[in-house]
């Protein structure tokens, strides 16, 4: 084989790619399209302007990383609600069992994947931060 041929072949591929859409994203100016079933940051669903969560404790029970802390409270109508709902994102393994276990469909996993923070304490997501906006 002509020793030049492989180089030409290689250059061909290189040249072809110069006109193709690049695979990499110019993050953060360009944003990836997250798949719908992607398991990112949790979100507490809201219905009738309050969280759907009834503090049944099934998510902390099922959580293999034990990263969810719930405390139940009683509201003015004597209904149960989560007075505390916290997820420690440093412990979370994003398995999604919590969403699966939820009997009232109050929890989801969003496409939010940018979870970097400067302080450890910032990884503790409180109910306020988890509520669906």
């Amino acid at each position, binding site marked *: 084989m002509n020793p030049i041929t492989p180089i030409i072949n290689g250059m061909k591929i290189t040249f072809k790619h110069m006109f193709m859409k690049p695979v990499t994203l110019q993050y953060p100016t360009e944003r990836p399209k997250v798949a719908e079933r992607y398991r990112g940051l949790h979100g507490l669903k809201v219905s009738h302007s309050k969280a759907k969560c*009834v*503090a*049944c*404790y*099934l998510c902390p*029970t099922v959580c293999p990383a034990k990263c969810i802390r719930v405390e*139940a*409270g*009683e509201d003015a109508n*004597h*209904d*149960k609600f989560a007075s505390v709902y916290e997820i420690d994102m440093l412990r979370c393994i994003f398995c999604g069992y919590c969403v699966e276990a939820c*009997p*009232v469909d109050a929890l989801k996993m969003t496409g939010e994947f940018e979870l970097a923070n400067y302080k450890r304490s910032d990884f503790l997501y409180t109910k306020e931060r988890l509520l669906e906006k």
Partner: protein
Amino acid sequence: MVNLIIDDKQVTAPKDSTIYDAAKLNGIKIPILCHDKKLKPFGACRMCLVEVEQMKGRQIPACTTPITEGMIIRTATPEIIKARELVLELLLLNHPLDCPVCDKAGDCDLQNLTYDYKVDSNRFSDLKFQHEIDYNNPLIERDMNRCVLCGKCVRICDEIVSYGALTFIDRGIETKIGCEFEKKLDCEFCGSCISVCPVGSLLARPFKFKSRFWALTKHNSVCGYCGTGCNLTLGVKDNKVLTTVYDENQGFHKGQLCVRGRFGYQFINSDKRLTKPLIRKNGTLTESTWDEALELVAGRLKGGSAVAALATPRLTNEELVVFKKLLLDSVGTKNFDHAAGYAHAALTEGFARSFGTSASSASILDIQKSDLLLVIKTDSYETHPVVGFEVNMAVKNKGVKLSVLSDKRGKLSKLPHAQTLVHLPGSEVAVLNAIAKTIIDEKLVNTHAASVPGYAELEKALSAFSAEVVAAQCGLTAADIKKLATDYASAEKAMIIFPVGQAYTGHNADLASAVANLAILTGKYGKEGCGVLCLSEKNNSQGAVDMGFYAQNGGLNGLQILDACTDGTVKTLFVAGENPLTSYPNRSKVKKALEAVEFLIVTELFLTETAAMADVVLPVCSFAEKTGTFTSADRRVQYVKPAISKNSQLKTDFEVFSDLIVKLGGQSSSTPAVLFGEIAATTPGYTGMSHESLKSEGAFAAVSMKPAFVVPQATASVAAEAGKLALVTGSALYHSGTQSQYGEGPMHVCPEGYIELSRADASTYKIAENDLVTVSSAEGSMQLKAKVTPRMPVGVAFAPYHFTAAPINTIWSGAPVTLVSVAK
């Protein structure tokens, strides 16, 4: 025993078993919702259907069908499973299915069965119930929408508690459980209904939404209130006691509890608990360190002939012994006592003289085995509610006769065929003497009685107590006294029950001797179902007596110690857990004594009023945080272990006393277990016990008796003077000592002191329920809320002693009966 075949397995069971019992006994599980082993069979839920071959394969309920010889039973044929699935479908038809918000989830029989039988769809459709939910009750939340109408709550309230607060109301599909005329629930709040509810219809409100059942760690313990010695299971999460969990296999009482046992646990994790030692500096108590505080205390105790101590009988046996060692050996004082120095006199003096031992000659287990119960004061129910349940069951299920000798009527007087003799307050001993005399006169004396020492003296002394004379003095009829005497003497087995405690000053050594005389005269002791049961007040009152923690060999007793404080002979007073300012008689005298004493040391859980007067307050642990043993009123020694780990800032009383012994140059036992070894070796009846052997189950300390007749001193009965009422003090059903004030449950139901009056007196003085009345005696006067009840006889008033906010000792100087005037 009957032989039968269940699921192809040859089994045997006792003759009186039902199919359900027989199967359970042999490890075959039959699903059921409406059964509790304490209750009579009912057959409401139809889950326990089984097939009996002899009955042509018909499906019959296992829980109501008695077994017969040769029965061939199948518990799980496809037809039965289908039938059970149908039952579940029908139950779930109206059930709200709100398991995520129902506190019963995880412990719910209906949920478990639905899961077991995989009932995940329903062929029927119907509306859910729309019953109103009772959120207002502070202890028991009732949600009848979840109810499966098993009737367990109704039955336990009737059969065991004997209150009958709940009942089935309405008919057909509209049937529900409620109070009569749909009134609000106002009962004893023992929570028995909650404990047996198979679903989430009846829930403990203090525990509402606190935790899921599966997240709780269950710790067995022994109740820290009264002397019954009930076993408890504490539900713990995150090192906090959140609830008590029902276990039908626990203790002689099979998990049955009273309001304070079930709902009075909050003091363990109360925010008001002391966490740091306090030392008085410049007149105020300031936080300090253990080193500083113990150094100071040790310095005061050193070489202290002027030291005295009062301990609460809520301490463990080990703590009492190590405290005694500290006082006797390291400090060198004989002046120590518990329970005001008189609340144990029935045991330490009365029984010691009459039976030769400071312990009861009967156990709580004898109650249901007896033929006749003689209860002195209906308050036995109020001081020891679970013993009261035993009496209820004995009378209602076993047909045991019940005679009550009391200064007022009460819950026990309402039991079927109960005979209540209401005498004038303070005349118990005279009436008992008259009964003894009748027994002698009617020749009902046991053949061996005449040979018991002291018989002749007793016979002579009793000559003044003829039934006629006593009846006239005590407001009874001679016929009643004679009937009681013949009933008691002629019953094959008879037992006497009486409570003692700080509020029952009349229940002293003389009363103990008077009742002991009856038992000895008729030979009703030392046998099953016979004897005298003295219900000591606190959880370890009997233990304190067994450990010898009371004034002996010339030591000053509780009240003498306070006198000595006032006159300056006692300069340092060590109070371990007692709250004399509220619970000892004559408040002004106690206050003067505590003010006069130079140095007051208090070990406490809370800053009680007594602790607030102290120079050093040492924070210690509750029963749920320590290891040790408690001895119940009937001398059952039971082991307690920590259910939660103590706050690192706290020490147990055991550690405090041990540290002090070391600081004073002595040597102390390393652990409660080691010390208990010493106790077992030296205390009569405790031989062979060890923490290890008591771990699974408590053991009775043997009682050996040497009977003797003792002539009891009868006090004259107190008749009300014109314009005055005879006030008797006692215990309220919802409280025990002053500790229950820190349990939220009891305080929800009975938050303040009160004075109970008869209807006649109330109308005479124009007092209505809940009126604030001024009660005055020779000691002082105070304001109390009035309670008008039909149980009080005319001229008699009753007041409980537990409340710091309304200390009854303001007007009560320790006399069994105090004459008071009431005015609005």
